[in-house]
């Protein structure tokens, strides 16, 4: 029912996957045994993940340029957690995207698809060149995830759908005695949608501890600060009162992210909600912490400025 602990521990602190993109298949080997080496590996792991995340941000801005614009804010705030999911936590086979035992990831805040596309390219699910076709005519890589793209689990974009879908996936694992874990990433303003709370109530009732919701808590929606739209506070209490185990983390601190992912499920018989405090637009100063960069145009000049800050060419 739950993801077996043996299996999960076996895929912690992998080295090879960090080096060679497109070889997640090997994740089940190379387990480190001693505490010493694990600590060593952890430092190495974090450094690699941080590098990967930097690349991810460069790649997502690259996509935004190709599209002439897009959702820089929510893509950037999610980047570190997406990296840790795809390059550390999730059991995946990029060469076999429909591998039945793969972990599932649903990007409920589908407008962050530039980041998802970037991580899927980096992980080897899709051709890197697709990033340059963001928003293009007949491209499978549009503003929102399309299930036809290898590695994408569901068409999202309309907010408030992903948690119910992920609940179905996690329940599907239970019914079929599969040990995969389902992750879903939600926007914070997205939590205004009541459909989330239907799913939250149900998933807790089902005791789906193979389900983890990550709230990208960047405090901003489309029109402004959430506190001024409809306040979510106290957010952790809401999840708790709906029966979820909650952990609040800094969604840009790779150590905290990895430690939390490695500790899943936080509690047997409960789904986990990770409330990740993040900065919208993280990584590019002019895009940080402002609703103006929820979605915006990106031309060559803006792209160049962003890339400079991201240590890119």
């Amino acid at each position, binding site marked *: 029912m739950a993801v077996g602990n043996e299996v999960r521990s076996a895929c912690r602190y992998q080295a090879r996957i960090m080096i060679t993109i497109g070889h997640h298949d090997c994740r089940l080997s190379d387990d480190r045994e001693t505490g010493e080496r694990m600590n060593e590996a952890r430092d190495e792991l974090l450094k690699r993940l941080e590098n990967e995340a930097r690349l991810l941000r460069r790649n997502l801005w690259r996509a935004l340029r190709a599209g002439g614009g897009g959702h820089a804010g929510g893509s950037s705030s999610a980047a570190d957690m997406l990296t840790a999911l795809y390059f550390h936590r999730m059991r995946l086979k990029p060469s076999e995207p429909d591998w039945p035992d793969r972990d599932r990831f649903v990007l409920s805040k589908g407008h962050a698809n530039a980041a998802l596309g970037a991580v899927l390219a980096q992980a080897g699910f899709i051709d890197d060149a697709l990033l340059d076709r963001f928003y293009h005519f007949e491209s499978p890589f549009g503003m929102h995830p399309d299930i036809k793209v290898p590695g994408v689990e569901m068409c999202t974009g309309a907010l408030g759908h992903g948690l119910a879908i992920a609940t*179905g996936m996690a329940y599907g694992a239970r*019914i079929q005695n599969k040990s995969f874990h389902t992750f879903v990433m939600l926007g914070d303003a997205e939590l205004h949608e009541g459909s989330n709370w239907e799913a939250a109530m149900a998933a807790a009732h089902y005791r789906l501890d193979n389900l983890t919701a990550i709230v990208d808590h960047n405090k901003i929606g489309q029109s402004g600060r959430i506190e001024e739209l409809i306040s979510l506070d106290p957010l952790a209490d809401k999840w708790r009162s709906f029966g979820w185990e909650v952990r609040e983390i800094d969604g840009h601190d790779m150590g905290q992210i990895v430690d939390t992912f490695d500790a899943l499920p936080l509690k047997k018989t409960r789904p986990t909600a990770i409330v990740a405090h993040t900065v919208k637009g993280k990584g590019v100063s002019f895009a940080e912490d402002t609703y103006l960069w929820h979605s915006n145009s990106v031309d060559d000049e803006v792209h160049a400025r962003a890339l400079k800050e991201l240590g890119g060419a």
Partner: protein
Amino acid sequence: MNMGASTTAPWREASANQTRLAFGQALLAIGERESRAVVLSADTQDLLGIRPWIANWPDRFIEVGIAEQNAIGIASGLATTGLHPYVCAYAPFIAARSMEQIRNDVAYANQRVVIGAAASGISLGVAGGTHHALEDLALMRSMPNMTVIVPADVNEAYHATLATLDIDGPVYLRLGGRTPEAPVTEDSAGFTLGRASRLRPGNDVTVIACGAMVELALKASDALKAEGIDARVLNMHTIKPLDREAILQAAAETSGIVTAEEHRFAGGLGGAVAELLAVERPTPMRMVAMPDEFAVVGPTVRLREKYGMSAEAIVAACKSLVG
């Protein structure tokens, strides 16, 4: 009431002449044959008669509570893992309340989710406008990838539900409405998706009906026969994909077409037929359908009378086309 030898089938008895219960009975047969089938309830365990399923396969039953949107989202997620979810729900709520979930999570993502939508049309006459489902065909028909089925009686409901075993995509099964005094379809006749069944020959005029109106179309045809008018009757059990050939043939061979449905005029069976004919072969039509207003409260039979959902109305419509 003579329903022949087949009436002894246990599922038929348990269906008590209700298409929604026939759906639940068919699920029991599906449960035996298809281990991937999963049943979801939105606090509708009795409505569609699924308690036997729950007893047989508790691990393949999911109660979602009164949360129709959630039912569809969860069903979509289940389907992605290879399971075959059957959502048991009220038509007036599942179609409208979950419209966007059906569009995105099921139709757009093209997931194999079957929706058993009970209490459609004015089945719940006394329950008033919030509980009448008179626009659900317009809604469900508006989406690509959807299969939309309106069984005419318990027999067809049973076989249409079984037919979902072979439909690899989303299905909306509209249940409820008048229960015919005798079955209008043959138990042995099976159900062929997307193929209207011709229940009466006739080359004077054609009645295309679905669901509860098929019985009335047959009665109308019989009455017309007595007056020397041969009215063809097509049971258009599949609204989407529409049987274009049967309709075009009827338009070519008879003087006009009367559609009959327990749904408002806009966008339902009549609308689908009109859209096709206007482009392919303009043909005089009459539509027997519910008016563009919220229906009053009352016993369903009285509402049917009030709103002209009757064999007489079909007869009159046919005569106006051959007259």
